[in-house]
């Protein structure tokens, strides 16, 4: 019944490499800007279609990896080309392939220099992103994780704004510093767990407590930079402001999720005891992200910077939900990420639409946009309200689930009641409304005073077109989230079981068994 089972068809490999192959074809054979645009669009749509079976023939009743592929790669080090997805990673692959189409369409007119390189960069980026979410071998994961820095670096560095050099450098150094530690951690695990890089083996191997702590810290730095969590978040507003619109869309839509995905895929199942141990820190950092960052967002004068800070605040909910180990909170964290992929992406696109007209991101340069761009004002308002997590929008589902899960996590994990954590996080209800609506008021509402604003034309059909799928998905997920949640139930339940089952007994047993094994060897 399942396509991949019947045909034994490598859907994941195809999803990963189709964009790359398309990029190669465009590079070698396609001439002329318009031809490149169309070719890139066709490739991205084809890539999206290829990923659809992942959702359509997904088996929601098992927590096992699906669509698995396994080929030996570097046998000397037991490194394999191993792929697979579960309910947690699969949605991100679809989100990636969908957002790539939107990115390509959004760049149709506003990118006029080096169109070919731009499109190739995005297609390569798609390959690496899907690779990150599909990899089940740690080295393969690391390979894609690092590889995506290159196209992202180029996208910001070449097509970015005035301060792009500073922003790219900051972005690159931050993420690289984190990644190096991850590599060290992976190597350590390789030797400890019996010379394997299989992520599933890492999940099963009983690391003892000290190991877990150190590896957790290394992973934490790598992932926290990506999320980003306070206080290693300052690269993000710079990267966002300088990135071209589509760059911001991918950055907010997918790239930020990699950090949280790392926590879900590595920290929680592989290092359950360390994850439990560090809960208070994660909670504290998440709360700071929600409250502190929201206050900072309030005072921003640059729209992109404001939305970037808003992203960090929303990711605070994700990290909070990740470390509550309850079904509602963890599912809420994943839903929150996907939802944020729609909403933040759309908000950056909204800013892009205005930027294409006036070439400024300053809030003060706008005002009364609704008078000249009524359709745009409605679309922008839709996503602002979604950003505020109004019920009916996808963001509400994620946030309320995280809050519910946090509130109920209470007695099990900590002496201090997480009820108060949930209540503190609920202040986001007020803060997000403050910064989002204040921006909307200053930019969109009001009388038409500025001459520059008077010249603005409403959205074209093409521009409206790329908002439609995002609006539909935001509403769908907000009003009827069950289909999305169905993918998560079993996988998240399995993850919680992994994250709450201590490895220490097994580790102790292993230590005791070792002399016996050694003796047997000799």
């Amino acid at each position, binding site marked *: 019944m399942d396509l991949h089972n019947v045909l034994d068809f490598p859907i994941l490999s195809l999803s990963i490499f189709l964009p790359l192959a398309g990029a190669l074809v465009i590079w070698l054979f396609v001439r002329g800007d318009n031809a490149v645009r169309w070719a890139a669009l066709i490739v991205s749509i084809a890539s999206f279609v290829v990923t659809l079976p992942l959702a359509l023939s997904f088996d929601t009743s098992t927590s096992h990896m699906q669509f698995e592929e396994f080929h030996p790669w570097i046998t000397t080090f037991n490194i394999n080309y191993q792929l697979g997805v579960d309910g947690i990673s699969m949605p991100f692959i679809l989100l990636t392939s969908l957002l790539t189409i939107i990115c390509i369409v959004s760049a149709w007119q506003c990118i006029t220099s080096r169109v070919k390189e731009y499109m190739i960069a995005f297609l390569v980026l798609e390959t690496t992103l899907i690779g990150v979410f599909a990899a089940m071998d740690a080295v393969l994961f690391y390979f894609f994780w690092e590889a995506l820095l290159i196209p992202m670096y180029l996208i910001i560095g070449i097509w970015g704004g005035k301060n792009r050099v500073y922003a790219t450098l900051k972005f690159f150094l931050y993420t690289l510093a984190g990644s190096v530690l991850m590599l060290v951690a992976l190597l350590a695990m390789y030797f400890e767990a019996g010379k394997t890089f299989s992520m599933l083996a890492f999940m099963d191997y009983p690391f003892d407590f000290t190991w877990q702590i150190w590896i957790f810290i290394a992973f934490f730095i790598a992932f926290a930079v990506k999320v980003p969590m306070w206080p290693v978040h300052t690269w993000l507003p710079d990267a966002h402001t300088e990135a071209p619109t589509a760059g911001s869309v991918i950055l907010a839509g997918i790239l930020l999720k990699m950090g949280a995905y790392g926590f879900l895929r590595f920290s929680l199942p592989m290092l359950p005891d360390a994850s439990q141990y560090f809960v208070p820190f994660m909670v504290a950092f998440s709360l700071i992200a929600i409250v502190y960052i929201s206050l900072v967002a309030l005072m921003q004068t640059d729209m992109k910077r404001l939305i970037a800070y808003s992203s960090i605040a929303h990711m605070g909910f994700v990290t909070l939900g990740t470390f509550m180990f309850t079904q509602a909170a963890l599912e809420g964290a994943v839903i929150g990420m996907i939802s944020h992929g729609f909403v933040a992406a759309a908000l950056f696109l909204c800013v892009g639409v205005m930027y294409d007209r006036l070439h400024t991101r300053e809030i003060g340069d706008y005002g009364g946009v609704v008078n000249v761009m009524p359709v745009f004002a409605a679309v922008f308002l839709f996503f602002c309200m979604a950003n505020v997590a109004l019920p009916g929008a996808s963001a509400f589902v994620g946030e309320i689930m995280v809050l519910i899960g946090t509130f109920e996590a209470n007695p099990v994990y900590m002496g*201090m009641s997480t009820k108060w954590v949930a209540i503190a996080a609920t202040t986001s209800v007020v803060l997000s409304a403050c910064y989002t609506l204040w921006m909307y008021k200053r930019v969109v509402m009001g009388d038409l005073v500025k001459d520059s604003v008077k010249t603005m034309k409403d959205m074209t059909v093409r521009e409206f077109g790329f908002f439609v799928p995002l609006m539909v998905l935001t509403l769908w997920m907000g009003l009827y989230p069950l289909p999305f949640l169905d993918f998560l139930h079993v996988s998240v339940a399995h993850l919680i079981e992994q994250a709450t089952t201590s490895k220490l007994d097994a580790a102790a047993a292993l230590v005791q068994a070792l002399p016996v094994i050694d003796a047997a060897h000799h």
Partner: protein
Amino acid sequence: MQEITLNTAELLAIPALPLLGALAAGLFGWALKEKLSHIVTSGSVILSAILSVHVFIQVMNGASFHGNFWTWMIAGDFVVPVGMLIDPLTTIMMMTVTIVSSCVHIYTIGYMHGDPGYPRFFAYISAFTFSMLVLVMGNNFFTLFFGWEAVGLFSYLLIGFWYQRDTANKAAMKAFIVNRIGDFGFAVGILAVWYYFGSVEYKTVFAMTPDFVAQNVTLGFMGWEVTAITFICLALFVGAMGKSGQVPLHVWLPDSMEGPTPISALIHAATMVTAGVFMVARLSPMFEFSEVALAAVVIVGATTAWMCATIGLVQNDIKRVIAYSTCSQLGYMFVACGVSAYSAGIFHLMTHAYFKALLFLAAGSVIHAVMAEQDIRKMGQLRKYMPITYITMFLAALALSGVPPFAGFFSKDLIIEATMMREFTEFGWVGTFATFALLSGVFMTAFYTFRMFFLTFHNSDRVDAHAKAHLHESPKVITIPLMILAIGAVITGMWGVFVLDIANPQIVEGYFRDAIFVTDAHNPLMILAEHGPHGWYHFVFTAPFWLAIGGIGLAYVMYFRQTAMPAAIARAAGPVYTFLLNKWYWDELYDKIFVAPTRGLGTFLWQKGDLDMIDKGAIHGGIIDSIKSGAARMRNMQTGMVFHYAFAMVVGVFGLLTYLMLSA
């Protein structure tokens, strides 16, 4: 009484119709143009009103409905269904909402005629009606919250409808954000309900409440202990305070008058702002078990009722007078709920919806006639030009003042008498305070209502020449809704008492049946029935009646006879007058203690935290630099600036939290 089953399709059609109308006008307004837009929206809302009345009659005859239609979300054991609970409390709300909404729709055809945003306006008010119906018809806390937020959204959109006006945009944002502060409480309440009851459906939660209370579950925070039921009720009540404009979250409601008048009538008088009262009545099986929460409801309600009445005394904007009156009347309704006379509260909600919507629409008719002038000092003698508006507004003013036999008299009198009967065991002073506040409120209500009425329709003619040239009675499409509502303002009081038996102290035997729960331990209506005055003529012996008459009399003297008196009094009262005129300086206070410090804190965290400390300090300068700047910050710590201390507090709280978690 035989069992009547309600038709599910009919029940679904009631909210669905306005939604479809809204979608049609909202998405295809450009094609439908003015006429089709208002036909499709008004038609669907009127149809919805007819169905609501039909359902109301069935429910009055004993029918009810409870069922789920689909599951909204599942995560582990967290399940949220979408369903309806149709009982007498629901239907009285449905009927009130749809009838007032129908009147407002028709009225809008005349009032908004020629406005460039005409179809959009109709789309908004229909969508609002849908949201309000979801709010009242839902069977769980999430449908309530969904409707709650949706009405807030449309309130926001409609207040800012004339988006060119900066004041309107500010008011819209203020309304949304202040409501969100209330929603914070509401959301926390929902979290707690789910946590303690494992369900979000009313029926399940209510059934579990008595046992839950008996377990005496408490919840503590840093040595402060409170029972869980009190915590839940207080948190939810914060939401009600926000939505219903109660002190100290009332500041948005008077500003919301920046929106077009039809929505002031529909949203900010008759329906949305009463959602808080509805919530408390709906949740009576929970509030009844928390004496603290009930006392809080009474205190907040009585304070608002009194304070907003004092502000209403001196306002000069015709809509603001009515707006403050709305806050004040909502306070009465809350007091009713707080003293466990929920049925009186809902009764007042219903009568108030008719006469207050009428007051606003009549005020709109006046504003329309005098070329968008809202200052009552620039009106006068309008009765000559607009007789229908004059008469209908007179009826509404009588109803609001509480003159028998008009609607407001019955409901308000019931509230006050119930308040006198309720004795709080723990907080004895609350009853006395509330009684004083409500009684003096009656006098002030009558006074400011007729002050506005006389200044508008009688007194000297102060209309400027430009407006005078256009002065005329409004067209039928405006006056007919006024007349329909006037019927409501006259008869709903008598109808409620004599036909619906709404004030039956034995709730179960009266109109509300099991929709409202009052413990026998404190049922003020019961005491009233046993010890209170009897007979239809008893109003002659009660204080509210004479206070209302006195208020009207004073207004008559000051604004009809001795027209020089008001200015003299204002001069004599000096600071008091200024204090009231500036609405007790709430806005200025909030600017000082919330808005400015929040902005300051935001800038501080950004500039000092992100840019200086993290970027410059940690990244560029490295450790040495950060030590240097750290020392500089230490020197600057005693800056005397509020937000610096606030920052220190935030950091401190986080530190403390972390410490507590680690040490526990």
